[in-house]
């Protein structure tokens, strides 16, 4: 286990949004430090407005930090790179192209010949269970199907890490749980590195092998946990959420993140 290779390092990251449009200065992140190993499934848990999206945007290269750095394979990241795929909170599928074309967007812009990419696109289409909707338009899909399309679109591009920003937050409970199963299966079977933001304690517990908790704004990392509930769910133990161990950790997380107070 200790042999794992570091993929990304977040070091002394601070972010302050400038006062703009009459607003005041906002300190969003304060000295965030995090090591991400290859094959990790990290769930970041924190209250709304604590800076989770800001952290993800910096890691993606979409936003520049005020100070501190993000390293990837030892090199400081500068701007966006397709090595770091992003799935946004609301799926940003392009309504002018079909589901399949959306998934093929990455290979298409790199001008990968269709003969090369077609097989892979079909593979991911099937993986997320949308083979019957290949030629549908995104606006003909349900919310869950849209988010699955966005996930496939990210995966098909062979990223080194997938950054997901509350990807299931807008879905109903039933769809959300089937999406969680889907992403867990993908993780167990192909072991990509996943960084997933959530404000749902159970989601974090049921998915990640590591859980990182963040404080109220300005966001800091309060505590990290290692868990294996997700492995047990994968092995068919759906009742793990009723185990004492789970309940205890859940209680601790809730207190840390401050939901207990509300």
């Amino acid at each position: 286990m200790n042999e794992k290779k570091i993929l990304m390092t977040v070091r002394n990251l601070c972010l302050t949004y400038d006062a703009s449009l009459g607003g005041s200065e906002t300190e969003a992140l304060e000295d965030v430090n995090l090591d991400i190993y290859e094959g990790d499934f990290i769930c970041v848990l924190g209250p709304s407005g604590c800076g989770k999206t800001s952290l993800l945007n910096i890691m993606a290269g979409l936003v520049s930090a005020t100070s501190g750095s993000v390293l990837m394979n030892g090199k400081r990241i500068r701007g966006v790179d397709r090595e770091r795929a992003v799935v946004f909170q609301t799926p940003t599928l392009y309504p002018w192209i079909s589901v399949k074309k959306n998934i093929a967007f990455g290979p298409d812009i790199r001008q990968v010949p269709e003969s090369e990419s077609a097989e892979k696109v079909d593979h991911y289409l099937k993986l997320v269970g949308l083979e019957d909707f290949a030629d549908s338009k995104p606006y003909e899909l349900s919310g869950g199907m849209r988010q699955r399309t966005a996930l496939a679109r990210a995966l098909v591009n062979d990223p080194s890490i997938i950054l997901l920003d509350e990807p299931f937050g807008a879905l109903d409970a039933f769809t959300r749980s089937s999406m969680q199963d889907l992403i867990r299966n993908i993780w167990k079977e192909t072991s990509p590195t996943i960084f997933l933001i959530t404000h749902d304690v159970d989601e974090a517990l049921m998915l990640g092998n590591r859980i990182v908790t963040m404080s109220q704004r300005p966001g800091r990392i309060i505590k990290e946990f290692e868990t294996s509930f997700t492995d047990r769910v994968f092995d068919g133990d759906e009742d793990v959420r009723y185990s004492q161990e789970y309940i205890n950790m859940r209680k601790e997380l809730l207190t840390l993140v401050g939901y207990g107070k509300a």
Partner: protein
Amino acid sequence: MKKVRAVIAQTKPWVISVISMCIILLAWIVISVLGIASMRTVPPIQSVIYSLYSISTEGYKGSTLLGHIGASFFRLFTAFFLAILTAVPLGLLSGQIRKVRSALEPVIEFIRPLPPLAYYTVLVLWMGIGNGSKIMLLYIACFTPIYVACVSAVSKIPASYIDTARTLGAGRRQIFKRVILPYTAPDIFTGIRTSMGHGYSTLVAAEMVAAASGMGWMVLDASNWLRSDVVFAGIIVMGITGILIDKILRELEKRLVPWKGKL
């Protein structure tokens, strides 16, 4: 009373449109047959139909109806296509680059509320009374709606649409081609339709000032000679062509940007 209401509720909207057209037509026929109105104010329907026929075959002052329509269309569509070719790139550029916008906007905002005929006189001074000044006038009339639509469409693009493309590896050019252009296309199309309507009404006005051909000129000239039948015939033709052009544009819109309203 209840029955009437039920019948109205069941009637399709287009049936109601047809009925209202029929009523107007019927009123016109009644007036024509009874001869209540003078020939000049409301020409009888048969004489309008006859003059439609005669201007189609023999023509009106030198060219046939088709010739007049052709002259008008040449001016209108030359200006229209020039406007699309320039306003779309300039509008999209202005939407993205603040400095381009700052340079163009004052001029456009100044011209936009002016009645076209006000600056037409200036254009005539500069370019003469030929087709040049007319095409220029129509060009200006067509340009602004497209430009304004492009600028506002670009500013509406959610950042996440562009961010997604970037994280998938798209560069500036590809973002433009694969995200900005398709995203703005429905709004651009709306702008194009507005622009056509604007150009069409300006066309008729322009031909009424200095011309010797075109639908607008034909109507004005006929009214100077008290030929109400030709005036009516001309107006009917202008109305129908206007509707046809809009129908064609709507059909094109449906085919080219089916994602309109789905963004």
